[in-house]
């Protein structure tokens, strides 16, 4: 029987990690689904959907030697592999400002009030150590108007002194 797992791998970044991990999984008869890798603060992070006939423990045993060698934290969760049901975003936000506690909570809190479903979130800390800046991009779906989103975000723009650009996404299908 084929099972789906979500693998989470975290460690110091160096070239070749994805290649080695995917080779081990392929050699064991695994099939990769969707994956997302990012380098966050110099750390290698990846989440990979894996389809394989093995049980959870066997997947862990498969990855452990590599995890030791590459000094990676590995975490395996059994999941439902719900492919072929992508939800398209209809709004995009860019947020930036001086790095300060609470930007993410404030912005996503306002969005959650409108049942905005975040489909993709990426944030970076740029600038210098003395003057860090925070930059965040969000794409998601909400069944509401652009103006109601703007209205809900307005108070925190003035309160936090951050810049929020909000754009509708109208996917052209042809």
């Amino acid at each position, binding site marked *: 029987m084929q099972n789906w797992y979500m693998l989470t791998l975290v460690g110091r970044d160096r070239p070749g990690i994805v290649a080695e991990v995917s080779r081990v999984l392929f050699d064991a008869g695994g099939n990769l689904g969707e994956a997302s890798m990012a380098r966050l603060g110099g750390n290698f992070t990846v989440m990979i959907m894996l389809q394989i006939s093995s049980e959870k423990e066997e997947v862990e045993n498969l990855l452990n030697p590599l995890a030791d060698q590459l000094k990676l934290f590995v975490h395996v969760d059994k999941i439902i592999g719900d492919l*072929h*049901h*992508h939800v*398209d*975003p209809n709004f*995009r936000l*860019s947020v*930036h400002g001086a790095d300060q506690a609470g930007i993410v909570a404030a912005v996503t809190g306002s969005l959650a009030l409108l049942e905005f479903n975040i489909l*993709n979130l*990426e944030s970076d800390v740029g600038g210098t150590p003395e003057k860090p800046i925070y*930059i965040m*991009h969000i794409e998601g779906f909400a069944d509401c108007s652009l103006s109601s989103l703007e209205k809900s975000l307005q108070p925190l723009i003035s309160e936090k002194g951050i810049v929020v*650009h909000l*754009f*509708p*996404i*109208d*996917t*052209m*299908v*042809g």
Partner: protein
Amino acid sequence: MVQLEILVYPDDRLRQVSQPVKAVDDKITGFIADLEETLSSQPGCVGIAAPQVGNFLRIIIVDVSSRPQHKNHGHLVLINPVITSKKGSSVGREGCLSVPDYTGKVNRSQFIEVKALNRFGSKVAFQMEGYEARAIQHEIDHLDGKLFIDNLVGNRNSLKKRNEL
């Protein structure tokens, strides 16, 4: 009129370059009616190209009138379309009948001028921008065997304001 079957990636036929229409005769007119029927059976879809249904002729249909927030020229049947000038660029999200369950960002010209024959074989020319111009460029790419997934742009966004329409 009949609904035609849509070719789906990775079908090699989507890579074929389509040939110009020599004469707009009854056969072509009949095919256009079928292509229109096929397009209208796809909710939310604003364009279709003949090669998507396995007819490798340079014919496209674009109709953005269901989205009045975007400037448009209504229902357009374009035969042998050629982009004669283009200006500016914009990144926007696209999907395709031939690439189910995937959408991605593509860079296109913001303004274009397109010349073609209409369904009666008369010469027509349009100046377009934004969403409608994007649709035309997407469909003309199909005539040249190209798909939007050949031209995806990265996911990490720049801070620059973009037209993502």
